[in-house]
């Protein structure tokens, strides 16, 4: 553990995103998401499909459409001497300067995320020219450099090729090259390895890790795999139903999970040493069985959306910090701290 600068690069406060429905009340996809991100740190947001993790990432760039920001702020601090800027309030050119410039994003489908009729080098150069004041020639040479940086052989020749001439793993590396060509401060990787095979996954993750280390890029790694948390994250947030359930340094969350959902997720992972022919239990069953336990929560009842006691519908939830640098969402009651909400965020980064 090392001490990173005390100022968080990005502070997301109480973010809520709604999706309007035709004949019904709006669907709240993200509710009260709050966290801090420090430079050079990898934050893994873990959750199942529909848990709101992708929408959280997109909202930071103003790309949540057709979703609508219901409330919240995302404060960006270039450095401790700079004033904070609220990303969620920016429009037009102001937010476009962040997109790809200061905050880059990598998407899940490398096969379709590149424009099929534009040469790969031109696409990277376009990103460069949008954010830096360089000539077309310089932009092209930076595109070639970026391709070389993501370990693509013969970058000069490959820059003149079209996306369909690249394999899936190479296309994802091209996407990363495009993302890093403008030297962003934050990289949002939305399930960057889901569509790739195991070997390529490892390559891509190692590449992202190297960028984080060498350029002190903060990474938001959106994933549904706890396995990635083990090897590639500094801090992890577990999301469900649009809320953060648990937030802690990666080691802590893997070793001492407090929320029953996290416990259940970890138990779902089949192990080589476990009993033979044992049925893998579903998360829902596990959460029910684990719930009465939760010894670390000091009497608080962990929040869980599948509970529909009449009384719970109107009850508020709150993030508490039962041990240092470890936050868990529980039902609010008299014992819970009142007045302000905790902002989870730990200044930890792995030593290179």
């Amino acid at each position, binding site marked *: 553990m090392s001490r990173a600068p005390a100022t968080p690069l990005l502070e997301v406060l109480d973010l809520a995103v709604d999706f309007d429905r035709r004949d019904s009340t709006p669907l709240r996809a993200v509710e009260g998401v709050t966290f801090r991100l420090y430079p050079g740190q990898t934050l893994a947001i873990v959750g199942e499909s529909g848990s709101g993790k992708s929408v959280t990432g997109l909202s930071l760039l103003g*790309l949540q459409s057709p979703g609508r920001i219901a409330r919240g702020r995302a404060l960006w601090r270039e450095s401790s001497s700079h004033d904070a800027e609220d990303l969620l309030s920016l429009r037009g050119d102001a937010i*476009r300067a962040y*997109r790809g410039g200061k905050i880059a994003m990598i*998407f899940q489908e490398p096969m379709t995320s590149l*424009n*099929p*009729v534009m040469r790969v080098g031109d696409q990277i150069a376009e*990103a460069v020219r949008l954010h830096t004041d360089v000539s077309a020639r310089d932009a092209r040479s930076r595109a070639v450099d970026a391709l070389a940086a993501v370990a693509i052989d013969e970058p000069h020749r490959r820059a003149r090729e*079209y996306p369909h001439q690249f394999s899936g793993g190479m296309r994802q590396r091209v*996407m990363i090259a495009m993302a890093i060509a403008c030297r962003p401060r934050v990289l949002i990787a939305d399930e960057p390895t889901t569509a790739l095979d195991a070997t390529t996954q490892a390559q891509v993750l190692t590449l992202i890790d190297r960028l984080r280390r060498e350029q002190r890029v903060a990474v938001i790694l959106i994933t549904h795999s706890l396995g990635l948390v083990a090897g590639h994250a500094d801090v992890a947030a577990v999301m469900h139903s649009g809320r953060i359930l648990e937030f802690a340094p990666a080691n802590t969350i893997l070793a001492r999970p407090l929320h029953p959902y996290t416990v259940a997720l970890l138990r779902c992972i089949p192990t080589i040493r476990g009993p033979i022919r044992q049925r893998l239990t579903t998360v829902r069953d596990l959460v029910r069985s684990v719930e009465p336990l939760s010894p670390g929560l000091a009497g608080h009842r962990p929040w869980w959306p599948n509970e529909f006691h009449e009384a719970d519908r109107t009850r508020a939830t709150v993030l508490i910090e039962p041990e240092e640098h470890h936050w868990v969402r529980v039902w609010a009651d008299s014992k819970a701290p009142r007045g302000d909400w905790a902002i989870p965020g730990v200044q930890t980064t792995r030593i290179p």
Partner: protein
Amino acid sequence: MDPAAPFMARVAMKARHFRAALGWGGAFGGGVLLALLCACLLAAPWVWSDGAYDRQDRAARHLPPVWWPHDDEQLDRLRSAARERAAAAESTLRGIPAEALTREAWTPSEQQVGQAMPSYLLGTDLFGRDVLVRCLAGGSVSLAVGLLAAGISVVVGTLWGALAAWRGGRTDALLMRTVDVLYGLPYVLLVVLVGVAADGVLDRIQESRSREARRQRESFVAASIELAPGDARTRASAESQALELYGTGALPGAFAQSVGMLTLAVAIGGVSWLTLARVVRGQVLSLKNRPFVEAARAVGVGPVRLFMRHLLPNLAGPVIVYATLTIPQAMLQESFLSFLGIGVRPPLPSWGNMVADGLGELNPVRSNWWLLVFPCLLLAATLLSLNLLGESLRAASDPRARTR
């Protein structure tokens, strides 16, 4: 090959094996088309300069193609045309007017007649105009109108459909309902309407121009009479001088002809973009939800640039294919309208009005078949080759059809 490969890259790759890319149909179509285009373009300078397409040789009227057997009456006409030509040649040689030759009862020798024997490769029409020359001129008119109309339809259709799909919502509804309404109108009516409107505008311009010229002439004459009053000859000479100076204000014939062609192209193009707008709208609807559009947004590409640089190039495949099929359609419509007499107006030839003329000349006594057959053949060959070409382009762009 990878079905995600862009259309143009696929065509380029396949063009290395030309037969495989377009098939025999496409090769044939391309070849015929190229030959026709070359013929029209190469012929253009001498067909168009000093109106060769309208040069008449009354003596040589209704002659069959030179390689076709002539009957006695046709031979007579051929010889009389040859005699007239020989006389004309003699008069220029000797530097005396043709009437002088007639007065001295000059008759050409057999050798002179043989030399002056006209040879019309595809025969002549009622006015003794060369059918070959008129076919070439008509071909370039037809091609020009077809290309222009297809160009207009591609530009309007692509932008219209893309804008509708891109903006969505009310804009989409408004633009596409307009298309539906236009679909319902008979296009002949639209073409006639546009033509009449253009004629009206032309008439108005013509009128104001001649009024202006007349005013200038009158003031010039009045000024001359004031300078030399009482001279009887002043008025006439001043008037002719004024006419020389200011003219009648009539528009040059070529201008009116170009406007007529342009109107026709605009009218045909204006009714044939509707299908393309629908095709493009469908394409854009599916394209705008593809991840690369969002990825482009995520690197900060603005909406205009996204539309122009990322979306439109992806439409190239279907648009090119559709354009290739629109050209023959537009040419056919042009010919059809000219055939009906509301398209290209004589004396400007077009395959359509030449066919109409040829059909009128067809009679049981003298078939004069060459007036009908050649323009028909050329039109059919052009339409067939363009359709073959477009069809094989369409096949080449269809990923499912490439497993043969």
